[in-house]
């Protein structure tokens, strides 16, 4: 619900705190009041904020595990195919040339298999994190609010987004003011 039909569209409302405990308490109150499109912004990661928002477990462990396993399997198969099938190398007594030749040499494939797994695990962590968080992005509506610049310094910010079904500008603003923030600001889209 925009403030005026022709005014700038609203991303949501922002409430600013100077300590994490107040932010966590405010998030809990908002959730009790039925708001769902909430977010908390902090200068460093605070587990309790994520818990209060109901985002208890992230998906990153799964992403990185899958990435690592795919990388390790690919590295193993690459070595087996390159040295065992495509161009057989039988030097220095390192492999036998019977039916299971590739199998007999397998321990010497392990270091590269391990490194391959670690490499893809790390890269899937970085790129997975960015992709799932929707980063990098050059701009975000929150950057329109000057007060938000302090969130990376020493402020703790709560946002209620306008897409929240319960969002109603005057009522939500009054509600946020009742949570005793340092300030409340409108975030234009």
């Amino acid at each position, binding site marked *: 619900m925009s403030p005026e039909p022709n005014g700038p569209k609203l991303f949501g409302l922002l409430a600013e705190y100077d*300590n*994490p405990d107040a932010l966590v308490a405010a998030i809990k109150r908002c959730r009790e009041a039925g708001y769902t499109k909430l*977010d908390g*912004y*902090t*200068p*460093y*990661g605070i*587990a*309790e*904020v*994520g818990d209060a*928002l109901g*985002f208890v477990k*992230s*998906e*990153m*462990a799964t992403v990185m595990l899958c990435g*690592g396993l795919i990388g390790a399997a690919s*590295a193993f198969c690459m070595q087996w195919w*390159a*040295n065992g099938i*495509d*161009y057989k*190398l039988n*030097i*220095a007594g390192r492999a036998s040339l019977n039916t299971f030749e590739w199998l007999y*040499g397998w321990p*010497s*494939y392990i*270091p*590269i298999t*391990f*490194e*391959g797994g*670690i*490499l893809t*695990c*790390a*890269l899937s*962590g*970085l790129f*997975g*994190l960015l992709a*799932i*968080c929707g*980063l*990098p*992005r*050059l*701009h*975000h509506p*929150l*950057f329109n609010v000057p007060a*938000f*610049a302090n*969130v*990376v*310094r*020493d402020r703790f910010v709560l946002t209620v987004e306008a897409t929240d079904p319960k969002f109603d500008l005057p009522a939500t603003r009054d509600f946020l003011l009742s949570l005793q923030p340092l300030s409340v600001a409108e975030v234009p889209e």
Partner: protein
Amino acid sequence: MATGVLAHDTHGPGGVPHVAPLPPAVGGNETMGSVVDTIGDIATCVKPHPRQWYVAFAFGFTLLGVFGIAVTYLLTIGVGIWGINIPTAWGFAIINFVWWIGIGHAGTLISAILLLLHQRWRTSINRFAEAMTIFAVMCAGMFPLLHMGRPWLFYWLFPAPMNFAMWPQFRSPLAWDVFAVSTYFTVSVVFWYVGLIPDFAVLRESAPTKVQKWVYGLLSLGWRGSAYHWRRYEKVYLILAGISTPLVFSVHSVVSFDFAVAIVPLWHATIFPPFFVIGAIFSGFAMVLVLAIPLRKWYGLENYITDWHIDCCAKFMLATGMMVSYGYFSEFWMGWYSHSEFEWGTNWQRMFGPYGWSYWCLIFCNFIAPQVLWVKKWRMNPLILFLISIIALIGMWFERYVIVITLTREYSPSMWGGYSPTVWDWATFMGTFGLFFTFFMLFVRYVPMISMTEIRELLPKRAGGRDGHAMAEGPP
């Protein structure tokens, strides 16, 4: 009793022994804002850089010039300008490679392993230790590349489909090395950069000029500190630490396989992987101290890199120095106990042969000199600690020298030979210091050298730690 870190053997109520609380990881009366001001203003050049920065940078940049000359001459003439020959076919190239990459390992140990072990004192030194890792691995990588003689064909090392339809020999430790070192470099950069993202976001807001805001803004990737993002971020950071831990052990183990897989006496030993890893950490901590002691003085960072941090690093050095010394003893012992004529003979040559002086050098630098660190008063003296660290770095270089020089006294006297580095060997080696210090000084100048994010996390007592673990009780 002196106020040691864990040194109070008093008993709490009920006779339960308790330990005194750890000293604060952040000294003084720092607040969230003052952390940003102190550390961020160095990176954004709001605070002028001390004169010593310019001296250090000029020193590094000059040596970088030496490196440029050495490499240009090398590429013009070939590796014949080095002292390498049979039997010592790698000489300085492998000594310096192992030395540099070993130095890098302390950075990963501090940032990854100590994170997993909840060691709060890692926080203020992990950022520049990670930078040290990256630059040291870059220096290390120079040597195998240049030793190839045709460095522009480096991609032959990788399994790239090429028209001669051949693949690397994946069962060779040298091929493992390529993957281990390139993975190590990549993962170190990823770990470092992921840690830097929130700090770049801080600088984006606090930088005074438009250009800085723009550059730091791009580097911060639009980070805005959402709780959803933090939860994912911290999980990624934790897992990166978790995978870096076996990685750092694997890398130096693979490096030691370059030697241990060969059947040269004293190389073909199962102790090599742990011996190499511990030596790496020993030299790495020495380098951390060599960098940290001047930096904290020049930039007045005593509240962040406190005496406690320096003390912990010194203890680490003492412990790893003793473990490395155990390795020397073990080599000697196995030579004697195995009744192998060659093992024993090579040991004897190592100690009293033509290069015997280098063996006693390493015993002095790595075993005798660090004993000074037992005394708290001495290890808390920055000058003494700095000197011991330099000695340890020299000692660890001699360790690799002694190992490589073993090739001059192998099984049969017909294989014996000599090795002496030329001025170009030295120029290349000294040149990599230029590479290292140039990059490191630029890092100090443009990147927050201490993690502002993690330091601020230590400030409030009730701060949630990484991924739901409460931080340890006690002063922040």
